[in-house]
């Protein structure tokens, strides 16, 4: 075991280095900057044999990644917020052309007003772009999931781009102890990418051919099929990863759900705070639990249903707003997942942390108490709770 002090960004860069990526094309943006800064240092110091493409924008960064990925290369990039928004057009092309690119996304609020701090507005705005989405809780998970992401993306039954999302500043800039694996262990775990098709002057192929009313729909249906394979592949990859690291991953992680009557469902770093609060409340005899979503796209419907089957009240945390919708993105997904279940919990949505607004243990305790109250009254006091806002 080798424990190194690293920020989340450094952990992602270190994982990309050990994953022996062939090409990195990226543009720096706070709070992702350290990822590409570290990686360019590896290149300058000769620690990696990666081609590093300096580009003038994120649109060009992802375009260069797509071109490189189509040659059969293992490709990594990273961005955040406005950079991700600028990539939006190319994100659909990366997934439509089935490029297994792995991208670190340092989640950050979107302008206006301009803000550099963490929330999930950036990736939630691109959630239908055909990218697999993983949200991590801390630097260790950022490291572990970046490595696993390459295996999932490059699997022959998947062939989709994967984003590894880490909360801006809370994870990207906080120094933690990260247990890193040996380079040869990762090389053995990942192996070399085996593309189904590649751009090759010796054996030419055409990519990005025009498809009108006659074929476009079928190619979109194929992407749906690829998404249906993700969870199975993830479970297989996670099992193998456990063998080399001792750490267990799957689509979701639960705490206290075996007997919880009131629960919180959330993504990312919030789960750490929520777990600590739940731990304290459980010690007081309160039946509370948490469900953390690691894999947000494809949404793990069956796992979420199973985890929530005995819960009476549920608070779903959203770190972004879906303007004009009844709920935030995550809450809409949970409500959809549960609508076919006869015995389902009373659900309310908690919108929190926008623009990096801090969420304190006392805030989460308040939500647990609201949920516990709902288990007694059977009624939800407020369908949407804006937690920590002044109004």
């Amino acid at each position, binding site marked *: 075991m080798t424990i190194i002090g690293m920020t989340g960004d450094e952990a992602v860069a270190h994982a990309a280095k050990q994953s022996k990526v062939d090409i990195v094309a990226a543009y720096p943006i706070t709070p992702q900057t350290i990822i590409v800064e570290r990686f360019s240092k590896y290149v300058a110091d000769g620690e990696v044999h990666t081609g590093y493409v300096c580009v003038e924008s994120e649109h060009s960064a992802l375009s260069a990644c797509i071109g490189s990925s189509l040659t059969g290369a293992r490709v990594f990039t990273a961005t955040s917020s406005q950079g991700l928004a600028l990539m939006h057009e190319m994100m659909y092309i990366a997934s439509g*052309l089935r490029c297994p690119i792995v991208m670190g996304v340092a989640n950050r609020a979107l302008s206006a007003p301009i803000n550099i701090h963490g929330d999930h507005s950036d990736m939630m705005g691109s959630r239908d772009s055909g990218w697999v989405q993983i949200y991590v809780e801390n630097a260790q998970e950022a490291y572990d999931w970046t490595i696993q992401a390459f295996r999932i993306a490059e699997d022959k039954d998947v*062939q989709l781009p994967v984003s590894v999302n880490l909360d801006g500043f809370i994870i990207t800039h906080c120094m933690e102890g990260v247990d890193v694996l040996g380079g040869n262990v990762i090389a053995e775990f990942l192996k070399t990418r085996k593309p189904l098709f590649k751009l090759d002057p010796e054996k030419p192929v055409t990519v990005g051919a025009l498809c009108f009313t006659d074929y476009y729909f079928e190619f979109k249906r194929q992407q749906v099929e690829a998404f249906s394979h993700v969870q199975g592949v993830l479970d297989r990859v996670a099992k193998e990863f456990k063998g080399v690291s001792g750490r267990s991953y799957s689509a979701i992680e639960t705490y206290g759900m075996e007997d919880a009557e009131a629960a919180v469902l959330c993504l990312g770093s919030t789960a750490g705070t929520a777990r600590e609060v739940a731990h304290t409340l459980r010690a007081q005899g309160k039946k509370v639990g948490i469900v953390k979503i690691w894999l947000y796209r494809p949404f793990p419907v069956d796992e979420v249903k199973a985890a929530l089957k005995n819960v009476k009240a549920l608070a779903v945390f959203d770190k972004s707003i879906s303007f004009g919708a009844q709920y935030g993105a995550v809450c809409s997904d949970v409500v959809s997942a549960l609508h076919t279940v006869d015995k389902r919990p009373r659900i309310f949505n908690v919108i929190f942390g926008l623009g990096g607004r801090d969420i304190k243990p006392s805030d989460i305790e308040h939500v647990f108490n609201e949920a516990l109250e709902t288990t007694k009254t059977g009624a939800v006091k407020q369908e949407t709770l804006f937690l920590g806002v002044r109004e």
Partner: protein
Amino acid sequence: MAATVTEPGSSLKYKTGDWRAFKPMVDKEKCVNCLLCWIYCPDSAIIRQEKWVEINYDYCKGCGICAHECPKQAIKMEEEQK
């Protein structure tokens, strides 16, 4: 997958002649074989013969550039009949 075409030169298999609304007709008497139509045709659908040109109707989309460029008015565009 991903609309990838795995074989080079396969556009020959995709005949575009049925896109045509107007059909170029060559008057062999008027044609002087200057080959301006052959140069201008965007679909390489002009076939060179010994003394005149012919049209490859499998790929001609009927754009009419050949008829427009012909200095001898040897190519007339006729409406396609259903």
